[in-house]
């Protein structure tokens, strides 16, 4: 699966998982800040993404994740091929 494909799946996952009071359009460049998520919300989101995408987030490498595109890149890099 290539990155744009993963990215669209991540966007779908975010739309389902993040309850937005004032919804914004979600793209690859959308940041956690844009979504109104604090650090605990991000930790919870990545925890749920682990189950959804069959990956495990390494705490140190995951610290650089700041936007949707970063999540998709991480998954593309670390996902075990099905």
């Amino acid at each position, binding site marked *: 699966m290539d990155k744009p494909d993963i990215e669209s799946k991540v966007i779908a996952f975010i739309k389902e998982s993040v*309850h937005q009071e004032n919804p914004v359009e979600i793209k690859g460049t959308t940041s956690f800040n844009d979504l109104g998520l604090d650090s605990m919300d991000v930790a*919870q989101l990545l925890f749920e993404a682990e189950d959804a995408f069959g990956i*495990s987030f390494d705490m140190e490498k995951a610290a650089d994740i700041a936007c949707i595109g970063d999540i998709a890149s991480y998954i593309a890099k670390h996902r075990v091929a099905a």
Partner: protein
Amino acid sequence: MRIVVTGMGVISPIGIGVDSFWTAAVNGVNGVRRIKSFDASSQRSKIAGEIPDFEPAAYLPVKTIEQTDRYSQLALSAAALAIEDAGGLAAYDTSRLAVSLGTGMGGYATYEASAARYFRNQSTPPFTVPKTMANAASAWIAITHQCKGPNLTFSTACSSAGHAIGNALQLLRSRQADAVIAGGSEACVLPLTMAGFNALRALSTAYEDHPERASRPFSKGRDGFIMAEGAGILVLEREEDARRRGATMHAVLAGYGSSCDAAHIVAPEHDGQVAAMGAAIADAGVDRGAIDYINAHATSTPVGDIIETQAIKAFFGNRSRDIAVSATKSLFGHAIGAAAAIGSIATVMSLRSGIVHPTINFEEADPECDLDYTPNEARERAVQVGLCNAFGFGGNNVSLVFSNI
């Protein structure tokens, strides 16, 4: 100075909201059923008082629901009902609003689920600690209603809410707060928790096929308590402030007494219970002859109900059979850290309505339990002063005195 109850909210297995709860109580409705929330087929006791129709979304925003254990959701929802009943707390500065809550287990559903993941080598949910911690509910009430005064949580097993309400009385008398949201919440109808109480042989197992008959305080054939979940919240203020803002006053919280058996880690003793009742009545400044109703702790255990009966007889002497007693736990089981709050609400409703709710499932009296337990049918009685008892594991005893306005 008198401290008054200006709001009440309850979420229980027999009704959500004071009106539903009290109507069900007076009608002797049963709330004990086969457990539905998890597969209890391997448990010794498969029945409990679960709340069948609680919808957190009716009271709480989505984000709050995601970040809270059920025990906090019950507390928050009961608090919302109580504050609405009190007409809101806008009359007070936020720094003068306090929260005083009781819970035996805290966010235990989260604990059990996260522990299961950990021991299966799965990752730990980030909200494990904030959801599990015993002070989560009181913190969330403060966040939701902007209560910036003292924020306290009491964990004294089955007497937790009693201590929380007693502490609220003291906060108001000492003017550390102007209004206190006080009560208790428990949501521990859960696999490990049930297994733990079953291993102690504390729960009833003889009525699995007839759960509606299982919770039978003071009755022959009782064989242990029934686990339940629920939350009860009172809003308490000084009378002068309640009058000034035009609040409806339901009753006076007149006294609080507390003691420890210092005897056994789970079995009760009657001296400590006598001491707690005596201390509450002395604190209320009433004569023991003034008590006309006791909302008993009465869990339906073979030993506990006898000890409480003996304590009442020791303290009230010849008058004890003139006092109306009823066991709220007969209706839906034992909500542990919430029990004393729900019992307090039943006591206040007796004062207001002049009706004592029945102790149901009273089929044949235990010869050692020979007081007037208001068996099976509600009774009219002009209750002026009521006592609410809560006696927890660890010999932790509380009594509260409520009187008519």
